[in-house]
């Protein structure tokens, strides 16, 4: 059996809903983004071939697939795509075809997206994605439509107070909390599987959005707040909290000279 890891930021036949009109939104990537495609084989004897197809010209070029044999049963096939020329593409994996995506340098379009990087601290939490490939930490990148809107900030406080004898108030300790809502989907909304990927990303150990580290706020999940009329396109809001520390292993296991180190603005607690 072979399957594409659901952490891959490309969508291979994500929905079986054949009714209604699809979302207008086209997935975007910048040429500097690194698109990591992971395919996991379980007791697999077939070969895995990945190809990048130009959506306009239908020209197909095979991608070089690296292999890591994890154990007797599991094999990981992966490749990283970066530095693509502007254009529309889709990827095929054996018989599967992904949704079309667009690579652009258009500053305006890119400004309406946010780059999210994500990874897990080890491979032991799940078996549908590999985040430490043979000892090296692997980050995925996904360019999501939307970002943090100013009207999505929420405030909280963690404190303890008591009333003193002379009816004054004494505060034992106090810490302020800011939670921000990430709005997924711009005016045209986005397909439902984007929310599924965002929810999955929020369960990762390391989440970097726009260079800052975030963590899911409590048990908040993507909430559908608006539906684009006549289309299967929606706007979601996901509440999250920014955290100011980086785990030692976030830093240690990133390979030297990796582009992600620069993006991370490493700060060790």
């Amino acid at each position, binding site marked *: 059996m072979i399957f594409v890891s659901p952490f891959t930021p490309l969508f291979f036949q994500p929905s079986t809903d054949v009714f209604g009109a699809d979302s207008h939104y086209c997935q975007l990537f910048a040429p500097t983004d690194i698109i990591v495609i992971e395919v996991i084989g379980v007791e697999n004897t077939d070969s895995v071939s990945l190809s990048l197809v130009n959506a306009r010209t239908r020209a197909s070029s095979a991608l070089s697939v690296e292999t890591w044999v*994890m*154990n007797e049963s*599991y094999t990981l096939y992966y490749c990283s795509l970066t530095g693509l020329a502007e254009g529309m593409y889709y990827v095929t994996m054996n018989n599967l075809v992904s949704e079309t995506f667009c690579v652009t340098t258009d500053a305006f379009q890119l400004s309406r997206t946010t780059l999210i990087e994500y990874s897990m601290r*080890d*491979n*032991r*939490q*799940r*078996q549908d994605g590999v985040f*430490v490939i043979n*000892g090296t930490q692997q980050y995925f990148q996904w360019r999501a439509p939307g970002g943090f809107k100013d009207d999505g900030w929420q405030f909280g406080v963690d404190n303890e107070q008591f009333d003193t004898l002379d009816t004054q108030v004494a505060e034992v300790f106090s810490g302020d909390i800011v939670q921000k809502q990430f709005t997924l989907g711009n005016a045209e909304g986005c397909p439902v599987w984007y929310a599924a990927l965002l929810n999955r990303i929020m369960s990762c150990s390391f989440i970097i959005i726009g260079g800052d580290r975030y963590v899911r706020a409590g048990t908040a999940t993507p909430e559908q707040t608006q539906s684009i009329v006549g289309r299967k396109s929606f706007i979601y809001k996901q509440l999250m909290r920014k955290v100011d*520390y980086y*785990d*030692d292993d976030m830093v240690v296991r990133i390979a030297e000279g990796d582009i992600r180190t620069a993006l991370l603005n490493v700060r060790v*607690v």
Partner: protein
Amino acid sequence: MLCKYYLQIGSATVTIGSEGCMDVSRMLSNIGDISLSYTRSDLSGVVRKFGSEFRLIGPAMEALVSYFIQNGTSSVAAMAVCPINDNWVYEKVWECTLDFGTFQYTLHDCSISAIDNSLASVIKAHASTKYQYLVSDIKDPYPLYYDHLTMKSFADYVFGGELDEYGGTSVITFQRTGEVLSWPLFVTKSEVANRKMMLFSDSGQVSGSLFSPGTEIFENLTDEGITVNVSLQITGSCENLPQDSSDSRETVSRLQMRVGTSGGSSRIEPVFTVYTLTLGTSFADEAEFPIYVGPREKVGLFTIGWTKDDTPVTVNVNAESYIRFDILTRNTADTCDIVRPQRLLQALVQSMTGRDDVTCTIDNPPTVLDQTHIVAAESARGVENAYLHTSYKDFCAMMSSVFGYVPVIGTDSVRFVKRDTLFVNSLRKQLSGKHADLSVSVDASMIYSKVVVGYENQEYDSVNGRDEWRFSTEYNTGVTMTDNELEMISPYRADAYGLEFLFMRRGEDTTDSGSDEDVFIVHAMYNGRFAQYRLNRHSTDSSVIDLAPSVSGVLDPATMFNVVYSPRYMVAANNKYLASFTRRLVFASSGGNHDVVVGGMSVGDDIVIAVELGTSMFMPAHLNIKTSDIEIPEAWDGYVAVEAGGYRYEGYLDDVTFGFGKDKPASYDLVLKQITPTEV
């Protein structure tokens, strides 16, 4: 983390893939409760425990229930826990048998608890059981050459004869010319170190030849000479003789102390113990002198005298007169079986666990421990088929109190290590995650106001035993916070006199003594030339290797051994531990000889706990903290550090529980080592 659980029904060990083994990973309804904990008890090694209850549903539950219904109380089952690794391979990390005594089920689920059958819990369950071993099964191939202590024997004699009406004088009468008369002497008090070596006896007023039966007061029963130190005080007078006109004062007789054998030669020893008894005069003497009594010779007090004309002569001896013999002897050497500590440990572990594949070691022993051997009281007594009686708990108490060594129990090994090595002054884990709920509390149970060090007090029948000092000594720590008492008592004895008395009783096979189940430790070194272990003694001769600390204040320092087990060396072995709550032990009291000076320090001196700054094992306080750092370190020998609230806390693990089924924050309980302010 992802984890697979395998249930094996019908066997106490899990063999994945065998019949009767099920993958129950999806049939455990209480996965969130399954946890793994590391605990340290008694300041020894850290033990991993996996005490969990498993709640099973579905096919697992059905299989277990039907098995139990068929097999009842002879049911046996086990669970293996296999977490995933980064290569997505499930590796078994833990296995435990299930306790059917806790089995219960409803229509939908069943629950059963795990028995921690780890080596540590099995040992703990049987630690206090006393086992007995035939010494010949576990002894070392080479014996101990026991060449004894010098022992003192003595006898006090008073003069016999008829007492006058005031009771103040003994009257001795002799009748005939040339009569050899032994003087009557009675033993009022005596102690013989070894009955096979000498005999003190009463002598009667017997006229006959020298050393005829009943005339001797002392006999040397050995084939070697004995030196007797005599001290005497005699006052008397010679009277009641009619005088005729032609008499001048005449020598009537000579009172002599003679040494010799009957039928053999005898000599007057020494020459000046001859008292000339002259009529009408009194005599008095007070003297101390040694006499040499050869092999099989006797000593007696005789008069060889003559009367002038068959008229009896009486001699009056003041009743306060006495003669005292003091003798120092040393028995000829014996040999006896010894048991090496490591061998005994192995036997104990095998008795407790039923396994012979457990590795038992004593790591990096210092010379004194390397030269320590165990002697069963019955071996010392020369009993045929001697037995050694002891328990694991006693063994541990001896190792920790005398040497500061504690057990570290692994999965298949029991290692005794110096307690200091478990509390290494190096960082093992820095808690790097976020933490909460920090609380520090002083642990009063770790603070002691009194320390009792040493061995159990013994009572001996012999006056020689008054020389012994290796009993329990009490010290005050100067701490007034609590009234706790720390006991560092070794159940194995080290008193040389106790051992000596046991050896002296060789041959008395039918008597049973209270010490027969005791165990001794003996300080001896292997001598290749003789293929024996020989006792270590202090030597002042620079040409002889000095094997033991110096000792004085005992009868014969040159023959004293086991000095290195003195209570003050036990304190030194546990220095760093004691430094945790005190820097000075103030002497309060001790059993036994107070005049002993060991290694230049008197038994009654205070002890300063001299450790380098920062090397005392810990502070008597605990730190509790919850943290998101759930990475389990490989070992717990160094300290765990966390920084919070402007301070850096370093402490050794006391207890921590990690969620195994579901990752949970870890709650650490640390025994604090030190707290230092962090620089801002």
